[in-house]
């Protein structure tokens, strides 16, 4: 098992840079998820760690060893591909044992390790089948099995669940988490799905346009997004973002509605400053139906456009100052379109972002 270190890593195709000098330290046995919209450079970064893409500049070290110029086979890593990349002409057994055979392991070692991996992943009955005879979830497990038989320094996952249906995805997510606990190992996992990132990661790396926007534990990233992009990307439904101007100690929205500046942020704002108020839907709730009602808060009136009852909670779509706003109602209460609700905005959990740069005022 090993730590992975990226220093000022750059990737360009011709003159087009796609990864702009990123720095990242991944600790031994850490589960790190690279997340971001498509084209943000997360897969490219993973492929550079794997050695499938050359590095244009910078350094990558695995277990302290500089691997910039090493081919994939010399990096002692395993990778699970988005399309599984099982060898279609080989049985599950041969797929699992392929890497060991290439490495020149004896037959008994190969058989033993294949049996071990098959046991961990519940593949023991499928060893003689061809990949074409397996279901999506089974193929996924074979792909993971192929990764673990070699006892590599690190596992790399490239959007491994994106070809599965929602239910299976949930199951496999749990299996990957279990796998990480069983075979304690460094994992770098790429996904565009923020739920996967939140549920699996020890640390999340949010990427955008070839840069790293934020690195932190899921809770850090969720509770303290460094900018509007991270705020919108992590969390579902996404954080409401309302443009506002500081006026007489309050935040004035475009339609004249005013909301108090959160107390902890009062020293950081100045009159006339253009800001974006960020509030998660969970933090705007009709009075008496909220989750966190004891902290600092303010009131705002919302007109219900659509309500989605989900049982014990309802998602409310409304408009505020010309922006769509989502709020959440906790409790078994039905809300009708057209209803006017007085809602509490939890200010202790609200964020202020600079309107120009999008940076969180509290981010260093």
């Amino acid at each position, binding site marked *: 098992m090993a730590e992975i270190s990226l220093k000022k890593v750059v990737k360009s195709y011709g003159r087009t840079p796609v990864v702009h000098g990123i720095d990242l330290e991944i600790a031994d046995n850490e589960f790190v998820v690279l997340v971001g919209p498509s084209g943000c450079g997360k897969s490219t970064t993973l492929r550079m760690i794997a050695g499938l893409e050359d590095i244009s500049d910078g350094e990558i070290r695995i277990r302290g060893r500089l691997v910039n110029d090493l081919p994939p086979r010399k990096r002692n*890593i395993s990778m699970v591909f988005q399309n599984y990349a099982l060898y279609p002409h080989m049985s599950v057994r041969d797929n699992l044992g392929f890497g060991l055979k290439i490495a020149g392991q004896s037959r008994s070692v190969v058989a033993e390790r294949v049996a071990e991996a098959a046991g961990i992943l519940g593949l023991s009955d499928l060893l003689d089948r061809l990949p074409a005879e397996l279901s999506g979830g089974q193929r996924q497990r074979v792909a993971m099995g192929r990764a673990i038989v070699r006892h590599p320094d690190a596992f790399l996952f490239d959007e491994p669940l994106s070809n599965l249906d929602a239910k299976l995805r949930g199951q496999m997510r749990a299996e990957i988490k279990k796998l990480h606990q069983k075979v304690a190992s460094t994992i770098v996992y790429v996904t565009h799905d923020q739920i996967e990132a939140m549920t699996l990661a020890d640390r999340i790396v949010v990427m955008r346009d070839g840069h790293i926007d934020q690195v932190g534990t899921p809770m850090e990233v969720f509770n303290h997004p460094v900018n509007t992009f991270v705020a919108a990307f992590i969390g579902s439904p996404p954080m409401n973002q309302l443009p506002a101007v500081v006026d007489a100690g309050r935040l004035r929205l475009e339609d004249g509605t005013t909301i108090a500046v959160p107390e902890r942020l009062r020293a950081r704002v100045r009159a006339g400053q253009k800001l974006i108020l960020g509030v998660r839907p969970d933090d705007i709730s009709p009075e008496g139906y909220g989750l966190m009602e004891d902290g600092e808060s303010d009131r705002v009136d919302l007109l219900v456009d659509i309500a989605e009852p989900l049982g014990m909670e309802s998602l409310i779509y409304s408009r505020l100052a010309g922006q769509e706003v989502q709020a959440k109602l906790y409790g078994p209460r039905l809300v009708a379109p057209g209803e006017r609700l007085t809602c509490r905005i939890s200010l202790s959990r609200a964020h202020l972002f600079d309107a120009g740069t999008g940076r969180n005022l509290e981010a260093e």
Partner: protein
Amino acid sequence: MTRALKQRLSAAALWLVTFLLMVIMCIPGLWVVLSAFRPNREILARPPVWVPERLTLNNFAKIFGLGEAQVAIPVGSYFMNSLVIALTSTFVALVIGMAGGYAFARFRFRFKNSLFLSLMLLRTVPAIALSLPLFMLWSRLGIIDTQMGLIIVYIALNVPFTIWLIDGFFRQIPMSLSEAAQVDGCTRWQAFWKIEFPLAKGGIAAAGVFAFLTSWNEYALAAQLTRSTDSKTLPVGLMDFTAQFTIDWAGMSAMAVIIIVPALILTFLVQKHLIRGLTFGGVKG
């Protein structure tokens, strides 16, 4: 008219048309095969004898110079020439086709598209249009009437096709398979031979059979560039049966059968390989 009846009638009509088309396509071939086993007298009979009275292997014996041979034609030499020329040119075209097809399918390089397009354009030039320049060139090089001369021509004829076909097969194999193999410990070369080659094998075999058939059946250029038993191929050898005033139809048919049989066998193989090559799939869920 009920719908069921209508359907049955149109099905019958379809069968009939298909059958007629098949008859039109098959009769000349069948006639050749039939003629190969009949005496000349019966072939030339008027009105034509549709159902042969007796079948004989005499025609084959004759062209191989066995029995009471009048026309001894060096079929053996022609057969060997054909075989050597077709096999060699196919082998080389396959090696180049595999390298080229892999490169076009896998690598990014300058002028890739224009290079590929010009290869395809090569195939639009009718080979016969090149026969005169080829003849002049080859005679200066002194490779007229040699197996090598024809081999080079056939390689040039086949390479664009093998590259195109094999490129298509490699394209169907996801890049991630080779990448997975490389992560699993293979060099790129090993990944090719252990993963990509076995998967493209069907396609490569199909390309090989097509290339072989092209070389085996080619007549026009071979007729220009060969002279003697040193290099004459079977299709050119067929013309040996025409004399100034007579044509030995029986002998010609027998030789045609000798040409057709390997081609026919290979055509069946092509079908099998093509189908296998096109259906290996099953990578994604």
